[in-house]
Structures are given as C-alpha cells and as structure tokens.
C-alpha cells in the first residue's frame, strides 16, 4: 500500500489514535502493575499495535473479532470503552464485565468483541461460528480470529483452517507471530519459518507481512477482509512482530537477548514508523498527531483514576450471570 494512496486523513488519524491508545494503555499498566495495583496475570500487547489497528481499520461494530490472553490491543482497536476496560482490569464493578472477567476475558458483544480468551487456540473455532452465522443470515459480516505463533500449533486452529476453507466462511485468521509462545522461541516450537505456509495444505490463501508496518498490515487485511465479505472465503494472514514486554508482567525474559526488545523499540516501533511516513508524505501534520498524543495521555490518566475510585463488585454478584435463567 503506498502511503499516499487510498487512505483518507480520517482513517489515518483513526489508525494512529488506536495505536497510541493501545501503547499508552499498556505502558501505563506496566507501571501500575509494578506498583502492585493490579491483580492477576496481565499480558501486554505493546509493540504489536500495528496488527490490531491495521486489521480492525476494516471492521465495523457489526463485525466480530476473537482475541487471546493478550487481548487489550484487540479490544481497543475494536472500539471497546477504554475506561470500562481499565476498570475491568482493576476488578471493579464498573468494568466492562463487572469485574468478573479481568484482563484475560474482556468482551463487549455490542462492539463485536467476542472476548479475550484464556485458552490458547480458543478463538478460531468461535470465529468459524461467527462466519457461519454471517453466511447463513447473509449479513455481510466478517469474523477475524487473532492468535499467536504458539497458538498456531493448537489443533483447534488447524481444524478451523479446514472448516473455514470447505465452508468458504467469511473469516480471517490473523497470526501475530512475535517469535515466542511464552518463553519458547518459534524456531523450536515449529519447523517452518512462515506460518502462512500452513494455509496451502487446507486450501486457503496464506500471506505473510511485516506486522510492525501499519500500512502493510492494513493493505493485506483489506484484501483478506474484502475477499471474505465478497464470499470468496477465508485467508490466513501472518504478521511478524515483536512484543516489547515479557510474556506476562513479571516475566524475567532470560530466554531472550535483552537487545531484542530494545532493538525492536528503537528500529521497528510501529508508531514511530507511522509518524515518519505520514509526515514525510505530507499526509498529516505532526501537530495533529501530537494532539492525539495529548488527548490519549489524558484519557489513560482518567481511566486509571476512575478505576481506582470505582467500587468493588458486591458479593451478591458472585452467583449472578451464570445463566440467563436457571
């Protein structure tokens, strides 16, 4: 995708705002967790923003995404309320899921966010169902399953490739290949370099792109989502990227060279690259981006302050929402 072409100013600003929101959200969580303000296991998405933002730039509230344990970025890109997310991660009653779900289970069905998922590989079958639903109802909706390189070895995902191919489902599988499943490197956990290669054995197209490049992701995702919407079936889209933080907050990361993440931050930061490209091409003024930076910084500040001030769920909530009716 040439930067100058096709993308409207509005869409560029939206892409940048999404990535900036995710980045600030995650960087702030990193600090708050170090301050022991946040309970449980938290997996940060910083470094991978271009994937969620680029893919979701083609989706509306009617479309669905399934997410992973590393789900904040997908939720933000899909339009979930940032304050509701923050309160959820703090376990408060005002959270998007009333504090019952936490970081690993953020969902918002009104935004087509089918949920972060604590089960690696849990999402792809669900997204096949979204695609099936769209197809049966002829609704024109599309489903996108995000998953990791580690998850690409899970049977649930591999079965989903086959199912979506034979039913020509309007879905896209986006593999965020950040080189690691927890502490295990991709070169150990699979014997192929490009995960997109797996598509061929199931009869769907597979594409690999630079996941740090918003434009590359958006272009490839646009083609895949367009194919899906037009009824031409699924695509496997692999985005190579790097996570800036550990697998979870608290991870000592002794499995990777400390320079690895530092280098990615220095040379492959999607936000830096985006800014350089749009300003160089004269598409956006630096000031417009600066304004977003200020706005988001404030949003995140408010989110944390409001979450901290919010009430805990009442103990009566313990056994509500198990069933709609029992």
């Amino acid at each position, binding site marked *: 995708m040439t930067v100058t072409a096709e993308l409207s100013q509005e869409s560029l600003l939206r892409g940048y705002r999404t990535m900036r929101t995710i980045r600030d959200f995650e960087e702030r969580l990193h600090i708050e967790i170090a301050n022991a303000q946040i309970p449980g296991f938290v997996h940060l998405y910083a470094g991978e923003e271009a994937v969620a933002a680029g893919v979701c730039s083609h989706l509306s509230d009617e479309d669905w995404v399934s997410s992973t344990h590393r789900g904040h970025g997908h939720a933000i890109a899909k339009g979930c309320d940032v304050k509701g997310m923050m309160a959820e991660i703090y376990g408060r009653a005002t959270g998007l899921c009333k504090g019952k779900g936490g970081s690993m289970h953020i969902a918002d069905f009104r935004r087509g966010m089918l949920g972060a998922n604590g089960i690696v590989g849990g999402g792809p079958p*669900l997204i096949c169902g979204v695609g099936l639903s769209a197809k049966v109802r002829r609704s024109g909706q599309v*489903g996108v399953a995000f998953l990791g390189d580690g998850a690409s070895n899970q049977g*649930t995902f591999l079965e989903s490739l086959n199912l979506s191919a034979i039913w020509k489902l309007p879905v896209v599988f986006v593999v965020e290949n950040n080189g690691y499943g927890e502490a295990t490197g991709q070169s150990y956990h699979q014997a192929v370099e490009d995960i997109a290669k797996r598509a061929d054995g199931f009869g769907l197209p597979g594409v690999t792109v630079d996941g740090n490049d918003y434009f590359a992701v958006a272009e490839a995702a646009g083609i895949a989502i367009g194919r899906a919407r037009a009824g031409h079936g699924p695509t496997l889209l692999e985005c190579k990227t790097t996570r800036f933080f550990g697998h979870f907050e608290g991870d000592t990361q002794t499995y990777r060279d400390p320079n690895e993440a530092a280098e990615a931050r220095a040379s492959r930061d999607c936000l830096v690259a985006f800014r350089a490209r749009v300003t160089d091409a004269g598409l956006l003024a630096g000031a417009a981006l600066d304004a977003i930076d200020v706005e988001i910084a404030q949003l995140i500040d408010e989110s944390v302050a409001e979450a901290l001030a919010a009430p805990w769920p009442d103990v009566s909530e313990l056994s509500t929402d198990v069933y709609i009716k029992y």
Partner: protein
Amino acid sequence: MARKLSFLLAINEAMHQEMARDERVIILGEDIAGGAGGSAGNDEAWGGALGATQGLKTKYPHRVLDTPISESAFIGAAVGAAASGLRPIAELMFVDFMGVCFDQIFNQAAKFRYMFGGNAITPVVIRTMYGAGLRAASQHSQTLYPLFTHIPGLKVVVPSSPYDAKGLLITAVRDDDPVIFFEHKAMYELEGDVPEESYSIPFGEANIVREGGDVTVVAIGRMVQHALQAAETLAAEGIQIEIVDPRTTSPLDEETIYESVESTGRLVVVDEAHPRCSFASDVAALVAQNAFDALRAPIRMVTSPHSPVPFSPALEDVFVPSPERIAAAVRDVLGAKSGSRR
C-alpha cells in the same frame, strides 16, 4: 394423545418443528445428512449415524451442515454462531468424543455469560448419544453426564421417554443458555405416546413417573425404564416404589426429591454412570444434607461399576444397573436396620 412414536422419531420431530418455527435454528454435525461429496450425488444419504436427523437436510438444505471430523472446530463454531445470532443444534455423535472438544463446551459456551459480566447470550444445544447396551465397547458406551452436570453454566437434559424427549428438546432449542441433551442409544426404538403438535417441558421439574409410599427411587434416562420394570416385580411382592425422574440433572428439582423422601423415608438412586462423583452420589448427598431427618434407612446407590464398559455381551449385560439390582436395593433399604458396608 393416541399417537405412538419412537424415541428417535420424537427427537426428529422436535427438530423438524423447531426448524420450521425459527429460521435461526441450524443443525450441524458429522453425517447428520451424510453423502456430501459422495459419488452418488445424494446429499442426504444417512440423516445421522442412527437416523435422528432424517429429512432435515432435504427440507432445509442451507441450514443443515455436515461437518468434517473436527469436533473442536464445529462444536466451537456452533458456540460462536450462537453468540452471534443463530440458535444452533450441534450433534456430538457419541458423548465419548467429548474429550477432543470439551474446551469449547466447558470453558467457552458455559462461561461466556459469567466471564463477560452478563454481556453474552449463547443459545446452543449439543445433542449427544450416551449409554451402554449396543456392544459398542469402552469408547462408545459411556454415560458421562456427571461431568457436564458439574460445570456451572451448562444445562443438562437426560430424557427417559419419547414424550419427554420431544418436549425437552423443544425447550432446549428455545432456551437461551447452553444445553447438553443426552440421548440413550439403546432407547431409540422405545415407543410411547407423543402428541403431534409442538409442546415444551420446563427444565428443573421432576416427573413422578410412578407413585408409591414405600421407597423413593430417583432414576434418570434409561434407568427410569429399568426402575419401572423393578416396580412391577416389587409390586407383586407388595412393595410400592415411587419413581422420581428429575429429567434434567442441571437444573435439578431438589424439592420434589425431598418431598418424596419425606413421605417414604427411604431412598434408592439409580444411575447408569460410574459410581464416583456421579449423579447418584449427587442426589444421595443432597438428601443426606437437606432431608436427613426424613431418612429411616441408609441410602442405596445403584450404578455401573468403576470400570470401563466391556465389549462382550456376557460382561456388558451385567455392567448396566438391571431391574433386578434395583429391586434388590429397594428390598435392602426396606429390610435394613443398619447400614452395612458394601
């Protein structure tokens, strides 16, 4: 209601009626139609492994989908479709196959509503065959509803007659929560009165299949039939048992069980499952906790043994709780002055 229908056709009719009523109902599973991609060009060759989905594909070609052998993917797809606007009935051919797809059932479908703070609806029905009796051996004869009953967020239905099967399946399809619907494969040919019109039977309401004042027998699924046989033998001996069929293990109609035990003072629980952490132990424990003072004798559980289901007819026939074993347990709780060790 003079019309007789088999258990199998009662289930089939429920699906026909619900698909006609609501176009959001779809059906998916392995060979539920059968024949897709085959050289006969016949897209409905089977209508299900044992025929429960007959005629549906022909009538609703776009809403009845054969699946590849990928239970995780297609059970998960049913769950995802339920979360996004449809009301799927997925068939897990034998419940024994749950081990390759249980995650989509117990961690996804069952938990969405709770984890997401009430922000989800997942109206999926999973129909599945269970039970021994067809010489299908260890991996095709299990009961397993206790495993599903344990999981919050699931509803579990185990019908014992053609009438109940139709009415409960219709309720299942209309229910907004995930429902696991158990069909005993050795009951498919059982005939019974089944009204032609559509009707529904509420979940969590036990059926007193037979009244009697001497001993309460709680039984479910095929075991209700065995209890009825035992009742005849016992009646000839002057013993009247009351048979309570909970119909759904989750939700469970505890009140009806307690009331019956309060009137009889004696309880036998019959369960085709293995004994440990079973439905038999569940009911026995609830009564020992909540209706203890009514008990005038030890509770007796009649279950299959703690062993896999054997193939040989010579062994399988003694595996399943028989009317004779039920009758013996009833006599036991009537005669028993003290709880003897098993």
